[in-house]
């Protein structure tokens, strides 16, 4: 995609961005004050993976609690099967409520961490930060200092929110529904801490979003029109728009909730004349669009990885690009499907009809991806395995959204494990899987090291097995009537719950394999070439890892992002994969790259 004019060597920074600047202290200071989008992206990646770890521990605890149902010994009156209560001290309990309270706090912690601190920022803030300027041929994002600020706000907000556990934990669920959230633990600051934490995280999200929108508008390399942008950029752009337009509403919602708790203003509280469902409208006006903030960047990763790893021009480029915008638009008018059981019939009907609209652009994307795979020269490696996983799991997640969006069936499925399974299929099977695909795909670019492919594929396969064991069972539980957010269940459900818990352990194994693979790659990985997969987008023209200002000279866009049929990618090595058939009559163009010039 790029031709770099070698005329302009103004800055003289030619070392990798990862190069140490002096001793340990100097290096830490350098990273802590950096405005380089690549370093900030990497810092985000580590912060997010750390939060993913924390949230994961909470998830394992939740699953562990559900391994067996809670029973009360008829003879002694003692409660049995409350693992969390046993873990946190109270031995020989005679009441179920202490254990239940711990359980409630645990799943709230899990949900809040995973949504606000992991999935929402995951792909945009880490991969997006790292790749967006590289893909556009820019030296940085539009507002580099704002970018760093948003990282600090993220860290600050996370500390704020997580510190509520030290005070005993919050039991509202990640949705903070009123009036419960306005009254539980009355007078105690921990709920306020958690809510303000989410509020602060919103600022970080807004700043990242507007930074990206401006970057896409203003910093595209010469020659790069809107339809020369990689689809990842389109996806990030669409989700950034949602971030900017939806996040302020959660800001005011959470602020009003804090006022509600601290001052008792009553807007959301029926005891004070307000309306609790109004809170849900406020909340979901943000939180539904934000599920597309979660999934759109994932879809972008998949579009790029798929085209590159199949070495084939993406099928229906414009359709996918417009589908991203379409999803962003529709996402603003379907939020009511979370309140079918409490809204008016008229509103429910309208929202149900609108919900089905989302399926159209989503399906357009899925079909285009499958079309791209057809007759591609598919490389079988970790990013590709994860991409195929995404197609499979996300389709299940999306399709199960339809019965949830149907009024009659949702009355049965609402607040059941079916919903839990649905959103895990889209959020974990979609976003996290895409994140894993993206991390592997761009790992060589980020750190200049190759990872071990065998270990990567092994990890991916184990994650796949573990994931389905954990969550497929939950679809079944949900349809049979297992409600969500309960610490116990009737014995009939034990078999499926047990399987689900075992699945969570398998998932743990899979992610640990990846963790060790990454660490090993950093320590002893083979040096990565600039373009290990034969990609055509601009980031592959930069060194691996890129230099401080990304490119040698100012890149110029000379061809489309997926022109595998017309152009031999830069750094192409015939051993890697066969050259696609040239277009009738002509030989493939060779993309210019600085290395081949020199």
């Amino acid at each position, binding site marked *: 995609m790029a031709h770099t004019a070698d005329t302009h060597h103004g800055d003289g920074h030619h070392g990798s961005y990862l190069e140490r600047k002096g001793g340990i202290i100097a290096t830490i200071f350098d990273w802590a004050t950096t405005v380089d989008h690549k370093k900030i992206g990497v810092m985000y990646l580590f912060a997010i993976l750390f939060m993913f770890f924390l949230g994961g521990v909470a998830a394992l605890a939740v699953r562990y609690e559900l391994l067996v149902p809670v029973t009360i010994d008829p003879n002694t009156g003692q409660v049995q099967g409350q693992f969390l209560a046993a873990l946190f001290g109270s031995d020989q309990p005679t009441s179920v409520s202490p254990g239940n309270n711990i359980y409630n706090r645990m799943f709230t912690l899990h949900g809040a961490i995973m949504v606000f601190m992991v999935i929402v920022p995951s792909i945009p803030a880490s991969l997006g930060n790292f790749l967006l300027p590289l893909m556009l041929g820019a030296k940085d994002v539009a507002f580099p200092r704002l970018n760093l600020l948003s990282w600090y706000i993220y860290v600050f907000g996370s500390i704020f929110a997580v510190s509520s556990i030290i005070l005993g934990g919050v039991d509202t669920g990640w949705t903070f529904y009123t009036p419960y959230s306005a*009254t539980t633990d009355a007078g105690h600051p921990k709920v306020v801490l958690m809510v303000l934490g989410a509020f602060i995280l919103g600022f970080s999200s807004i700043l990242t979003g507007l930074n990206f929108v401006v970057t896409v*508008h203003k910093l595209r390399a010469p020659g790069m029109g809107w339809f020369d942008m990689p689809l990842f950029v389109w996806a990030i752009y669409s989700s950034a*728009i949602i971030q900017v*337009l*939806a996040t302020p*509403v959660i800001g005011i919602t959470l602020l009003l909730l804090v006022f509600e708790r601290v001052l*008792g203003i*009553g807007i959301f*509280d*029926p*005891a*004070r*004349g*307000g*309306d609790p*469902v*109004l809170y849900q*409208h*406020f909340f979901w*006006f943000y939180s539904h669009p934000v599920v597309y903030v979660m999934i759109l960047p994932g879809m972008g990763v998949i579009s790029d990885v798929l085209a590159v790893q199949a070495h084939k021009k993406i099928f229906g480029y414009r359709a996918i690009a417009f589908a991203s915008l379409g999803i962003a638009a529709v996402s*603003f*008018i379907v*939020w*009511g499907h979370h*309140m079918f059981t409490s*809204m*008016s*019939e*008229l*509103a429910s009907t*309208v*929202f149900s009809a609108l919900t089905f609209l989302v399926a159209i652009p989503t399906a357009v994307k899925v079909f285009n991806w499958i079309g791209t795979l057809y007759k591609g020269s598919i490389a079988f490696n970790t990013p590709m395995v994860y991409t195929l996983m995404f197609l499979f799991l996300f389709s299940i997640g999306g399709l199960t959204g339809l019965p949830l969006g149907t009024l009659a069936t949702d009355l049965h499925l609402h607040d059941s494990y079916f919903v839990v399974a649905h959103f895990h299929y889209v959020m974990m099977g979609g976003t996290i899987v895409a994140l894993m695909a993206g991390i592997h795909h761009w790992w060589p670019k980020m750190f200049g090291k190759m990872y071990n492919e065998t270990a990567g594929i092994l990890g991916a396969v184990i994650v796949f097995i573990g994931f389905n064991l954990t969550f497929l069972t939950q679809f079944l539980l949900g349809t049979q009537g297992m409600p969500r957010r309960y610490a116990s269940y009737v014995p009939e459900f034990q078999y499926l719950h047990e399987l689900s818990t075992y699945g969570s352990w398998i998932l743990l194994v899979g992610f640990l394999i990846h963790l060790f693979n990454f660490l090993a790659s950093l320590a002893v990985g083979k040096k990565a070439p600039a373009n290990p997969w034969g990609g055509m987008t601009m980031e592959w023209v930069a060194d691996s890892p890129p230099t401080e200002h990304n490119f040698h000279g100012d890149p110029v866009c000379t061809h489309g992002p997926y022109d595998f049929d017309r152009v031999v990618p830069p750094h192409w090595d015939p051993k890697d994969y066969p050259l696609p058939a040239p277009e009738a009559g002509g030989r493939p163009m060779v993309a210019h790259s600085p290395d081949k010039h020199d």
Partner: protein
Amino acid sequence: MSHSAQHADAHDHGESHSHAIVGPGLLRTVLAFLLFFTVLTVAFAQIEVYVEHAVGIRLPWWVNVIGAMSIATVKSVLVMAYFMQLRYDNPINTLAMLFCFFALGLFLMFTGLDLFSRGMVYDFKSGPVIAGGTGAGVPGANNQPLTQAAKVRFKERLAENNTREWLICAAKVEDAANAAAHSKDAGAAEAAAVLAAQAHHMMDLHAVMVHPPEAGAQAVVVRDLEAQANTLRTKGNAAAAELVAAAARSVQGIDMAQARASYSVEAMFDRLAAVAHGGHHEDHGAASSSGNASRARTGVTGVTGHAAPHANESGHGHGSEATP
């Protein structure tokens, strides 16, 4: 409006279309328009009140709303176009703003779609709405709606000894003021004004809630009234002074023990409420606004008259059916 914006002349680099310079002349014109529209929107609201009051035509509620909101829209467009220079700016910025208003519109519209159609099919969906809330769990509300709880608390205050004494005196002064107002005697008008002001001052919410009366109210009031009488006397209005002094004497003559026994908290509450709703009561002192006063007065002309005019028109089954 003249378009005196010039474009920046000398800029060393590239596109300078965003460097529009809007001169002070144009800014002043825009400011003048904005001030004009501010006057207009106030006048519009006042005229509506006047029409309702003097001519007796109650305009439909949307006249008021649409009038105020369209003027506000025009004002905001002026601010955005000229002060914020959107008119000379990259159109993408305007587009961003339009998107934002569109999103806001969706938010209001679909939220309203639900909240205004509750109970359309099943009554239970609009629920047993307790007007003003159940008060459950609200400190000091005793499971009553908040407004009800506030009334109860206030009545408890009215029953306190010092407050009672203070209000008994105030009622006496008010009676004297009323008597003076209806009398044709010389100086009665001036005396009525002085006494009414005094009564109003004493019955103000401030006097009861913010600075609760202290013991010995009777003596304080007598002293105050005598001072007023002296002032009138030095101004040469002996007749009015005599009326005020008579009021002072009648306050002095109150038999507190007996008055206390016949004091009714409910009656006193109604009296204070009438003062509050009559518009004589303004919580920022003497600055009383005619517009709001008259509006508040229309509110109190009988319980039925107060029922919101458009509650019936808008037709949703959720709003105003306050449980009695």
